[in-house]
């Protein structure tokens, strides 16, 4: 349990909720990252706000890490992603490519990810989102168990 961090988690979570609230009350849009990201390519129509949103997201992650090194990750920025589990004898880049494909395809077909379904959908009490969240959390836990990636 040494890595359990409830306070930064709750502060960060509230900021994410506030982000979703601002986009909903201001522009009437769901702050679902897979949707905002996935609709950058044609036949996309409203690209400008999506690009601005994503640039601000990256910029704020960068700025927060620099300005407030004492909170969150303590100034430590993630230097690496996961490694492919040794038992699978798959190069890490290939492992991440498969994970990326599944993430992009799944969130497109299922219409949302952790933010769109997990935060916004549950908050809207959407039946679809309750089902999606139950399924992708369950499958993700099972995948971690089966692949031994931790």
């Amino acid at each position, binding site marked *: *349990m040494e890595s*359990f961090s409830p306070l930064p*988690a*709750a502060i*960060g*979570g*509230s*900021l*994410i*909720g*506030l*982000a979703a*609230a601002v986009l*909903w*009350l*201001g*522009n*009437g*849009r*769901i*702050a679902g*990252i897979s949707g905002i*990201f*996935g609709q950058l390519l044609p036949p996309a129509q409203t690209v400008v*706000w999506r690009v*601005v949103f*994503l640039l*601000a*997201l990256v*910029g704020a*992650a960068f700025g*927060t890490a620099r300005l*407030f090194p004492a909170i969150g990750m303590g100034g430590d920025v*993630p*230097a690496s*992603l*996961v490694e492919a589990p040794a038992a699978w004898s798959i190069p*890490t*880049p290939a492992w*991440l*490519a498969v*994970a*990326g*494909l*599944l993430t*992009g395809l799944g*969130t*497109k*077909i299922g*219409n949302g990810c*952790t933010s769109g379904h*997990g*935060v916004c959908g549950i908050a809207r009490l959407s*039946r679809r989102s309750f089902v*999606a969240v139950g*399924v992708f959390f*369950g499958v*993700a836990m099972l995948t971690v*168990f089966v692949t031994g*990636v931790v």
Partner: protein
Amino acid sequence: MPHLRAPYIATAAASGALFGAGLYVSQMVDAQKVLRFLDVSAIPSGGWDPSLAFVIVPAILVMFLAVQWSKRRQAPLFDSVFHQPEYDKVDMRLIGGAVLFGMGWGMAGICPGPAIALMAFGPENLAIFIITMLIGSYSGSMLIPSGHARRLADAR
């Protein structure tokens, strides 16, 4: 075209910035930390990290309040309509998509939000994940042409 007016764009920027700050502060940009939440087999040994639950619950609560408040309004501040998803049927596309996404999330420990936020830190191999995520998303939209219109048609 409300989408190009300054307040609309400024709102998108403010929301994106809050989101990025939240992802960093909550440490959800750390794939290992997310995986330590998903690794429920570590519960008996005490190695499980429940932090992710402490992120998503307050996020849902804040958004829930905003949604309740929005119900008393005709429209958002800077557009003429709340873009509420109209389709509400639980179907195989929803479940199949959630299964595929769950597999990808369990393999890498990063979902789309953290993947984008990590561009600020440039960890090795991130570009591979982002490009394949975009390819996957684009392939999905080929499989399901004009997703929203077609699903709406199906619903009738």
